[in-house]
């Protein structure tokens, strides 16, 4: 029996996949929201992000960093959204948006120190790699639990409205997170109170080994907005211009009091979930290869070529420039002592350490002094 309600394609028609850059690289100028200079700048950022992710995975394989989780294939989603916001806006990341932290001014060397957990780590060695925070750029601290950042982004935007500030917050999460409690509570709270927040779903098709079809019976993620009484849109997440335009639209809506937007960016996780994953165990090469052809950097490159902004050798030059920047950052980061000092273990649990922590620091110092193996890895 055919289902008269869940007609296949119904929701894909209702929330059409929006693109701006055509297959041949052309674009309707009326729909382009980026200047040539800005588009070129973001192209540079996407290349830096890609080169960084590839290099950091190498460093992990060499044992120089313990873990890495990147955004290969999802660069247009990350950079298109962050570039569509105002500098004063707050960003609530998931854990693949490192390019967003760097775009907001986090020094590259600081980012690498965080990966190393060394004496230059802004997080004092308290978190594993790729859980950075950068307050000067309003890039909020990353945690591993899924979707917890969604109601937090709602709360910050709500607070801004209470204070009368023109601030819209943006949060990123994967499509797997749309199964989690906090996605729903966040969307619901934002809808009820018309909070100026943009909820960006990086729908990259996979949550570690679980495909999108096993996360939700919804045909699209964007349609979930309907149930919360909020605005939903679905864009090609590999099309930087489409992502940027949609983000700007959502920001205008939010800032003018029309409330939140659920923005689904359809993209693909070309690599494993993280360096701890091997996707060959659960998906075929054909699927991945098809998405490699839809690479967001190639896509923007075709647009820039169409705009005559990208001479033939320019891409290689930009990649070389990015690699050099990464090489210098790693070199500088590795000059820091390999570990922060021992008292940082107890620093920042509370504004001031409690007696328990002061006692335990003394106890630990005495143990290290008595037997230095206390500080050695097993």
């Amino acid at each position, binding site marked *: 029996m055919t289902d008269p309600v869940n007609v296949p394609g119904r929701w894909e028609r209702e929330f059409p996949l929006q693109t701006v850059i055509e297959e041949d690289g052309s674009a309707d100028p009326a729909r382009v929201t980026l200047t040539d200079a800005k588009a070129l700048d973001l192209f540079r950022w996407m290349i830096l992000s890609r080169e960084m992710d590839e290099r950091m995975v190498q460093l992990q394989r060499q044992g120089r960093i313990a873990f890495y989780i990147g955004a290969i294939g999802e660069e247009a989603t990350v950079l298109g959204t962050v570039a569509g916001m105002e500098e004063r806006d707050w960003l609530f990341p998931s854990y693949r948006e490192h390019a967003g932290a760097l775009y907001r001014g986090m020094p590259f060397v600081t980012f690498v120190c965080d990966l190393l957990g060394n004496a230059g780590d802004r997080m004092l060695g308290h978190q594993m790699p790729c859980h950075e925070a950068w307050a000067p750029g309003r890039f909020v601290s990353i*945690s591993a639990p899924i979707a917890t950042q969604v109601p937090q982004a*709602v709360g910050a935007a709500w607070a801004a409205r209470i204070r009368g500030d023109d601030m819209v917050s943006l949060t990123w999460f994967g499509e797997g997170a749309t199964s989690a409690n906090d996605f729903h509570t966040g969307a*619901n709270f934002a809808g009820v109170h018309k909070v100026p927040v943009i909820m960006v779903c990086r729908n990259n098709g996979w949550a570690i080994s679980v495909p999108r079809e096993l996360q939700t019976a919804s045909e699209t993620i964007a349609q979930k907005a309907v149930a919360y009484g909020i605005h939903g849109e679905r864009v090609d997440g590999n099309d930087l211009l489409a992502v940027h335009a949609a983000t700007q639209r959502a920001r205008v809506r939010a800032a003018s009091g029309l409330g939140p937007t659920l923005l689904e960016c359809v993209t693909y996780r070309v690599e494993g979930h993280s360096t701890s994953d091997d996707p060959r165990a659960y998906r075929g090469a054909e699927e991945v290869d098809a998405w490699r052809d839809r690479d967001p950097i190639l896509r923007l490159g075709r647009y820039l070529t169409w705009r005559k902004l990208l001479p033939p050798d320019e891409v290689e030059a930009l990649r070389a420039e990015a690699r050099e920047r990464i090489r210098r950052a790693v070199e500088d980061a590795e000059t820091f002592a390999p570990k922060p000092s021992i008292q940082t273990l107890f620093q920042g649990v509370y504004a001031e350490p409690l007696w328990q922590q002061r006692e335990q620091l003394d106890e630990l110092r005495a143990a290290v002094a008595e037997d230095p193996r206390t500080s050695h890895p097993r």
Partner: protein
Amino acid sequence: MPTLNIIQAVNDALRQEMRRDPTVVILGEDVGKFGGVFRASQGLQEEFGKDRVIDTPLAESGVIGTAVGMALYGLRPVPEIQFADFIFPAMDQIVSEVAKFRYRSGGQYTCPMVIRTPYGGGIRGGHYHSQSPEAHFIHTAGLKVVVPSNPHDAKGLLTSAIRDPDPVLFFEPKRMYRAARGEVPDGEVVVPIGKARVTREGRHVTLIAWGAMWHEADQAAREAADLGIECEVLDLRTLQPLDIDAIVESVQKTGRAVVVHEAPRTCGFGAEISALIQERCFLHLEAPVARVTGFDTPFPYTLESEYLPRAPRILKAVREVMAF
């Protein structure tokens, strides 16, 4: 000086802090127009408006999750969880987020808030309206845990909690909400976090309690006095940071300690207090440290009088440590 009950004292503290600090906001289920199911925020939305006293949808993780965002942005949220039994949907936000923001960001972000919640049994509420979950939060580094036993301390400790730079769990003994009455000054009352109070001096046994159980301990001490046993009663008031000096000073004097709490015994906070006493008072002890607690069961409905550590069971423990 006016005589208030605990609910009135909480309301008084909230009102005064909201007047003093425009960043203080209240959010939760039924806290706005209705003033809270226990009336703790009665009249506050009328005075401060819907932007500062917010009725939220019915989802505790959303109450705390949005409060986190508000705190990060510079507000001072005072979210209410209607019953401590319903705090568990918000555990991820409290344990993984609230408690860790300062630490995990290397001090770049802080998340000060006061999570107010009524706790404890004796109100015929069964296990979803009676539990005492304080140990979960004491066990989570990054949180402070405060439990007042009387109106004066409720006002003074809540005031301190709202001004504290760290997140505070503020457990209110709901059985004593209206039963405990006392004089509370009209103006500012500040009771420092981390200081216990000796409410009764004695030389034979130290009774250690907090919240509603302080009243039972005090009753047991009175009955013990009739038997010629002088109990020293300690109202901890703050469980984290714990006033270890007050405990050690008293137990070194009496040589005997009875710890009282409503929560189940195994891994309850009494276990930690007992361990600290044996670490620091070993050579002063005349008897093993006794615990009078709830049992290792869910909180029962019909047999709650038997479950709760009330004065007769406390008195029995006092007599046993004296006879050891």
